[in-house]
């Protein structure tokens, strides 16, 4: 069965940038220009989950992203690795939302797309880490959701999902359409092939504005929030690491043992 899939992808500042470059200024996270935007890590895993299904069962993948001022080369990576279509909810009105307003806008866009068997989301965005949007979308659409998926197979109206639980996993069967929220362990997102990159360069993303998904601006972004961000701050952390040296690494290792005994840690 050819599977219709939607993958929700967010553009975020590279979460792997060294912690020291993350600076809060006036309640906003400010990052130096050398920190490049990327597709969030768990959305990349979600894309890979969809691509694996397309490899075996065939089907169509629509990447869907909400934000503003997308860097085209970054977000078009979804097309380069094998998504068939890219829809951007791109407008100033979509900025500074919370999980509530984001899930509402994505759900409205998914309704407009209309045909889908699986909506893939990442378990949490790589910037705000809230871990809610996938479940919110499922609730709004009134479809089931399975979270923490690390393996997904689709057969005749159902998906079989390996879901991570503490100290193990479950195999869960879910009726489609469904939201599947992906965790790591599914495998890193494949590299784009040269052919994929060239094909993506020729495709233009479809851009939808608030009116296109039939939502009032008052329901979107910052205006549509149900929680208020009161303050963003960075607790001061003093670091005072005692580096144990030695003529060789092995000697340093032995000295570390002595030092930890001395300090009565071990």
């Amino acid at each position: 069965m050819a599977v219709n899939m939607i993958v929700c992808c967010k553009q975020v500042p590279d979460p792997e940038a060294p912690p020291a470059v993350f600076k809060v200024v006036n309640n906003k996270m400010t990052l130096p220009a050398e920190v490049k935007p990327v597709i969030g890590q768990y959305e990349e895993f979600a894309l890979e989950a969809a691509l694996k299904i397309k490899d075996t069962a065939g089907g169509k993948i629509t990447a869907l992203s909400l934000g503003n001022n997308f860097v085209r080369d970054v977000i078009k990576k979804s097309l380069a690795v094998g998504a068939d279509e890219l829809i951007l909810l791109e407008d100033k009105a979509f900025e500074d939302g919370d999980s509530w307003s984001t899930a509402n806008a994505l759900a409205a866009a998914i309704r407009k797309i209309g045909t889908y068997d699986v909506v893939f989301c990442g378990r949490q965005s790589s910037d705000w880490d809230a871990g809610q949007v996938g479940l919110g979308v499922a609730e709004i659409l009134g479809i089931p959701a399975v979270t923490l998926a690390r393996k997904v197979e689709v057969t005749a109206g159902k998906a079989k999902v390996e879901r991570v639980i503490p100290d193990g996993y479950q195999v869960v069967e879910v009726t489609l359409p469904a939201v599947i929220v992906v965790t790591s362990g599914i495998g890193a997102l494949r590299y784009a092939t040269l052919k994929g990159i060239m094909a993506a360069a020729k495709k233009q993303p479809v851009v939808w504005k608030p009116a296109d998904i039939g939502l009032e601006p008052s329901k979107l972004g910052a205006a549509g929030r149900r929680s208020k961000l009161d303050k963003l701050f960075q607790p001061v952390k003093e670091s005072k690491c005692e580096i144990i040296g030695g003529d060789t690494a092995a000697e340093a290792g032995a000295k570390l043992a002595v030092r930890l005994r001395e300090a009565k840690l071990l």
Partner: protein
Amino acid sequence: MAEYKGVLVCGELADGKLASITAELLGCGRKLADELKENLSCLLASDKVGEASKEAIAFGADKVYAVEHPALKEYQADSYMQVAEKLARDVSPLVILIGQTSMGRDSAPRLAFRLGTSVTTDCLNLSIDPATKLLVQTRPVYGGNAQAVFISESMPQMVTVRTKAMSPLERNASRKGEVIPTKIDIDTSKVRTKVLETVKEEAVGIKLEDAPVIVSGGRGMGGPQPFQTILKELADLLHGAVGASRPPADNGWVSEGLHIGLTGKIVAPDIYIAIAISGASQHTAGCSGSKHIIAINKDPEANIFREAQFGVVGKYEDVVPAFTNKLKGLLAG
């Protein structure tokens, strides 16, 4: 306008007993309820709740709603949500506290969206604003590179709380409270998922969460083998457990259960030895509660040295065996 009253903890059972996260939530909930001059209640839903209700009272609850139903034996969202939503609507609390656990991560956002409110996940700190009486919710964001303070703009005010972030009250078996056996029907025809199989991959030996010493390896270990030899030998010597950052789990070098961090386990041992781990904030989020962190890394600039109290710069292949050997001698002598 509905009237909102009290603080509700959505509790959990572990092996039939009150889960430690629930005792932590009750400890924090008690303080919030006292400050608000409100009641603290607790939902416990399982196939059998039993003595856990009394435990919840001993740890601070005024009221326990005990919901027993065969469909609640193993957590399944579509069954559990019917109970949680019904109870939340009936009780109509001001504040709902849920654990940032496997079950809480899956259930809290669903409940929030059903109730039409927001939830702030993974909170580390909660307090009551003296002026507005609203819940002030602090959680890490950007992988732990910053913290954000949120205020709900809708009721009830919902949060999930990170494990080990709050202290339980001293258990007091003479504390008075009321257990309310509550019957809630579950329409099993609305359950759209089916658990075909549950596979436990429990590690042999001491559990990661309980280990006083954790020897943790990262991507720099290069493969599965050193986890079973070099790291295991050190962990055994110290009566500790082996852990890992996310990449070794993603690569299948170790089981997913050993993955420590924001999206893995939260641990707080006496000693955490981070070996060939760069110290990304998403990793240290899971181990920063450790009493002492010791880092071994070949890169002197690695961020883990900002978190650690003691460190050695060098290749783990050279450093760790020498460290283990010396320690063996010292511990024997």
